[in-house]
């Protein structure tokens, strides 16, 4: 097969194989989803689309948050052309496996519609991405604001083991440790799938705990705060006591904020443990056992050597998974992203082995 031959050549010629933990595929147009929707939803969806929460409008960086060079020459949205994705990402960087995180919304307020859209997206992913391209795997899109419906979609679709993860989002309608999400976690565990929590979303609240910010940079860089809230909630609610084999992957949130959060949570637990008797261990122990983190957007310390200090403080080098975030503007290039030269063994783990272990490639 021509594709395979090209890959082999690329691999032996230049670059070591990379596993990319975060790639975004998109519909070429909204209408492309309609054939995959159950008939009873097609007309409604075409007429109304989906309802989210209060609009948040300000100039962002680029249309579709895309790299300016990622619009397919043949037309369509960035990430909508497999051919161009092969050329610009999979072949160019020798991606051995790439995980698709489709961000077409399944967090709409009409929960039944969310479920129908999620199922349609998953079937579209199989037909359009997973079947034609053996290097791709995908996250399951689920109607995450309804734990039962999400669990049903996981049970339905997870039989196709090319779905390697369940996709949630960093800003939700309730903190993710709350019990309404537990059926979803139960289904993920039952189907032996990690939960990926990806940058973005809106649960209808201001993007910060101090109200609405004014600028895109606060929304974008502020995702680190959204992730912190979710880690705090998942730990404090006792989700990992309830689901001891649950695995969480935080995608596109950065990772330098995690060590200070672990220190703070451990301090909080030290004083306030009477409030959370369901917790049996230090928060940092739950975190180091249950969490994985993708590297993009890469941390760029003031002095490059501080990156080593960060890895030491994090103590999770076996949990870091490289990601490009293709085709988005804050893309990390596999051979350029790290601010320091890593030990070759560590580099191999972050670039491929950690993901292989987690996703069982």
């Amino acid at each position, binding site marked *: 097969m021509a594709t395979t031959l090209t890959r082999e050549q690329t691999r032996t010629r230049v670059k070591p194989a990379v596993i990319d933990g975060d790639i975004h595929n998109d519909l070429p147009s909204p209408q492309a989803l309609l054939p995959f929707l159950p008939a009873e939803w097609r007309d409604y969806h075409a007429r109304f689309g989906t309802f989210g929460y209060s609009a948040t409008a300000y100039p962002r960086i680029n249309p579709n948050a895309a790299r300016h060079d990622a619009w397919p020459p043949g037309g369509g949205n960035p990430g909508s052309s497999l051919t161009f994705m092969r050329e610009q990402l999979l072949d160019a960087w020798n991606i051995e496996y790439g995980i698709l995180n489709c961000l077409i919304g399944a967090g709409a307020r009409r929960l039944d519609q969310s479920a129908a859209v999620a199922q349609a997206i998953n079937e579209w992913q199989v037909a359009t991405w997973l079947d034609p391209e053996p290097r791709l795997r995908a996250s399951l899109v689920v109607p995450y604001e309804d734990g039962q419906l999400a669990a049903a979609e996981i049970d339905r679709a997870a039989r196709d083991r090319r779905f390697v993860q369940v996709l949630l989002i960093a800003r939700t309608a309730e903190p993710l440790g709350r019990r309404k999400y537990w059926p979803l976690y139960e289904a993920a565990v039952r189907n032996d799938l990690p939960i990926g929590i990806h940058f973005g979303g809106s649960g209808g*609240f201001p993007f910060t705990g101090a109200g609405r910010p004014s600028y895109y940079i606060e929304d974008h860089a502020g995702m680190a705060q959204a992730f912190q809230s979710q880690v705090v909630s998942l730990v404090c*609610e006792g989700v990992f006591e309830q689901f001891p084999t649950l695995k969480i992957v935080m995608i596109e949130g950065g990772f330098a904020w995690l060590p*200070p959060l672990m220190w703070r949570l451990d301090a909080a637990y030290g004083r306030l443990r009477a409030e959370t008797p369901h917790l049996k261990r230090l928060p940092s122990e739950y975190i180091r056992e249950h969490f994985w983190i993708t590297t993009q957007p890469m*941390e760029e310390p003031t002095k490059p050597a501080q990156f080593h200090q960060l890895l030491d403080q994090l103590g999770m080098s076996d949990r870091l998974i490289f990601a490009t975030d293709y085709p988005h503007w804050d893309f990390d290039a596999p051979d350029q992203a790290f601010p320091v030269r890593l030990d070759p063994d560590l580099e191999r783990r972050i670039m491929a082995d950690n993901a292989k272990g987690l996703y069982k490639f």
Partner: protein
Amino acid sequence: MTATATDRLAQIVAQGVIDADLNVVVPSSADLFPYLPEYWREQINQTGFKGPGESSYPASAETSARPEAKPDGGPAGSSLALLQQQALDPWGTEIGILTCAYAVEAIHNPDAAVAMASAVNDWLIAEWLDKEPRLRASIVVPSQQPELAAREIDRVGGHPGFVQVYLPVRAEAPYGNRRYLPLLDAAVRNDLVVGIGFGGSPPNPPTPSGWPSYYMEEWAGMASIFQSQLMNLIFEGVFDRFPALRVTLIESGFTWLPSLLWRWNKEWKGLRPQTPWVRRLPSEYVHEHVRLTTQPWDAPPVEAQFLQIIDQLGSDELLLFSTDYPHWQYDTPEEALPPAGLPDALIAKIMRDNARTFYRL
């Protein structure tokens, strides 16, 4: 407690200490009667209105009160005698800065909010500043009504005991938002520091994903709200508009600061055209305009990592020693000292000189 640690404490204390965070609590609305107009006394007597409801510090939570700090018949932080005995005298504190997290921002009625804030400020003068020359205080303002807050700042800002305007970190809109310009302008006009402190009672939840279940989540998650506020102050350009503005983050923790500054510096390089008034690295604004109190440390378990974090702050002027009395952040005073591995000159800056310079004490 080892003899060495005790000796070290004695040496440091002997050189003089400024405590940048002492917390006082209004025991009850009745204590404010001498400072309230008759109309509001009657409203309180006849309607059951008692001022702000819920506090960000549950009265008996371990984090709110050291075991020995509760006076007979009142909440921790309501007794000057205990504060003198337990916080000022043992540390040989030269100057201690009071904050009062009296949540006037929770009072919807703007006139009630102003009346209660004014009463608290007059109570602070009469019951604390007039009685104890070592104390300075922070002005309580109805921050949800910035024009009225500015008026209150002008009313009492000339009193030599007030060195700061207190704003709760949780807010309906972040403090860089232009609606707060009158408030910030008044702080600068009166040569006062703006102190942003733990807690607050705005209408919006403390996380971008809604309301958490446990106080431990609120406590641990508060750090991320400080992060959002700081980010907003920088990118809204308040330090460009008010070059003399000084901001202290109180009880914010600080180990999160270096890695967050990396992120903001990184993103600013590409996104700065949307906030073009920000003409320098975000970290430079922090170094020039922002200070942080030391408790809670939120320190890593390994001292070497703690020293790394303090080095990564990139300035020896940022940290202000605090006991955070009567909040229970440490067991022995030695634990509240900066790590022994720091140079003596830096320890002296943290314990005293940074606050003296920043607050012009």
